[in-house]
């Protein structure tokens, strides 16, 4: 816990609380039909998002997955703009065109969630190539789930990043279930870091429920990338508390297993313990923090509810530039 100061600690804790409250609130709203097309709840995975995004620069690039509310909130986007996008409103981060799976703000380095498993690492790898080509001092992070670890193109991209020493971090947000399929049943060799190390890059299996551990590994990986030493693979073991999609009634795991993770491995509980034992806050102050988060999420819902729908007349606007036909 070296270098952890009070303001950083409270910021990390608050961000994780924002994600949890956002997801649990959005989940209920989704069941009430407020989120067209449904959503993927990331509750339980907060430390992976906050540990990673707190360790990179604001204008570093991320590209992510179908489950990306937590990455987007941790990158610093307001609960309002993310909630409004879940509601597919004009004020949403993707102006209602993206929805829950396609949160993005490319000009600021958020290269998007994705509806296709395994697509994010490739896009982040491409961004890292752009960074290297232009010579900027930035990095890219490609988030991928355990499901995406079995798509061939993810490994094509990891290989390409390795041979060209691209400034990339491959961050496996490993919640252990690809929809209903347990990672252990479909992972040849069993060890993802070992698999990755065959591509010639440093690869680690880490505790994704420990925000400080994630932050530490990402910080080191970012330094390597900036030094021109190439990509790093980080497999952060975590757990999702809810189904793959909202409303899922899966029988593929036991209630005992979920309860075990919630009660002994919860990333917010664990880090709250660190914050209190380090003397950064009292329990009462932690409760106040939670109350302020509650208020923020309530405001986000009100904002999303009251926001306008996108203009239907715009449905064909912005498909292409329309300028290829101009005689130069």
């Amino acid at each position, binding site marked *: 816990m070296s270098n952890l100061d009070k303001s950083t600690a409270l910021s990390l804790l608050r961000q994780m609380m924002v994600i949890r409250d956002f997801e649990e609130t959005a989940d209920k709203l989704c069941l009430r039909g407020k989120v067209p097309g449904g959503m993927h709840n990331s509750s339980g995975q907060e430390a992976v998002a906050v540990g990673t995004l707190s360790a990179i620069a604001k204008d570093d690039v991320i590209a992510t997955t179908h489950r990306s509310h937590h990455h987007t909130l941790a990158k610093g986007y307001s609960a309002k703009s993310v909630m409004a996008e879940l509601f597919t409103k004009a004020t949403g981060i993707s102006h209602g065109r993206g929805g829950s799976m396609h949160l993005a703000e490319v000009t600021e380095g958020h290269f998007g969630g994705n509806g296709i498993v395994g*697509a994010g690492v490739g896009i982040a790898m491409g961004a890292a190539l752009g960074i290297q080509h232009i010579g900027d001092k930035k990095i890219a992070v490609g988030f991928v789930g355990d499901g995406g670890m079995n798509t061939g193109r993810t490994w094509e991209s990891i290989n*390409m990043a390795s041979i060209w020493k691209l400034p990339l971090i491959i961050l496996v947000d490993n919640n252990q279930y690809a929809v209903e399929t347990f990672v252990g049943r479909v992972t040849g060799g069993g060890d993802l870091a070992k698999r990755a190390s065959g591509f010639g890059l440093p690869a680690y299996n880490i505790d994704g429920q420990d925000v400080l551990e994630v932050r530490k590994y990402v910080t080191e990986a970012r330094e390597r990338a900036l030094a021109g030493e190439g990509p790093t693979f980080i497999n952060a073991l975590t757990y999702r508390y809810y189904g793959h999609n909202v409303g899922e009634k899966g029988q593929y795991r036991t209630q005992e297993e979920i309860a075990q993770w919630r009660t002994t491995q919860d990333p917010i509980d664990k880090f709250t313990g660190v914050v209190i034992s380090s003397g950064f806050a009292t329990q009462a102050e932690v409760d106040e923090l939670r109350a302020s988060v509650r208020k923020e999420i309530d405001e986000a819902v009100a904002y999303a509810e009251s926001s306008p729908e996108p203009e239907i007349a715009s449905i064909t606007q912005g498909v292409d530039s329309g300028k290829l036909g101009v005689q130069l």
Partner: protein
Amino acid sequence: MTTEVKAVTPTYSEAFQSGVREEMNRNKKIFILGTDLVERGGHFAQVKGIAQEFGLKQVRDAPISEAAMVAAGMGAAMYGCHPIVDLNFIDFSLGAMDEIINQAAKIRFMFDRPVPLVIRATSGVALGGAHHCNSLESFFAHTAGLSLAVPSTPMDVKGLIKTALRNEDPVVFLMHKKLSGIRGEIGDENYFVPFGKAKTVKAGTDAAIITYGYSVVTATKAAQALEAEGISVEVIDLRTLYPIDQDAIDAAVTKFGRVVVLDEAPLFGSITAEIAATASERNFKSLKGPIVRVGAVRAPLSANPAMSEAAIPSVDQISKAVKQVMSY
């Protein structure tokens, strides 16, 4: 005695080199990525010598990873570069279809971010069998967000690639393999061919053949043969399939009322179907009879040269189609 040295005009492939060189000289954010580009210069010498002139940062030899190649180009394009991903054969794009159709084509619409990316490949029927002779134009033209160039001359290759590289849209740039070695004049550095502007290759007074790519050659041969029989056929080269020159198609339909649409793709669901259907919707009363489509049989291409030739339109078939429309 005067010696007249007749300068040798560039080939179709050299025209591509010329356009790319000129644009790379003025824009360092253009780079080329693909397999076997540095030494071999690509399978059709389309980038021969460019690596030696511009260096290995501007021309990258990639592993045979089509999905990652396109992802690399797309991510770098989103970041601010203008990559040319050279797949050599368009058949190989099928390993990157998600990157092309789900990702690159849709990013501008969803995220309001241009994707200035050229995907170059050689297309069309020649020897090589079922996996090197696909005509996939309709896949790409069907996809909102993609533009599609199909030049038939060195002049148009250079003029169109320069336009593509001055714009910001994802462009699929298809060069027909049987045209690789043809020679012709090319424009200077200020010569650009806009997308969506067809060209009349041969004027005529009785009927029109609307086509593109290598079929411009077979159509012209058919038109010449028909001239001897007293039938004057106009040959129109579309040059790009999206945007498509609907004005030129409308003009041909209304002027002649007798139209043949020709390409090398299997007829079912092809570009020729699109052109004929749209023409009948827009100008049915101008037609003297049905538009006749000429295309390939519904079968994979065979390796046997005679079988391969038999699968695609012959000069005789095209002549027969013209005679059919002349019979109305």
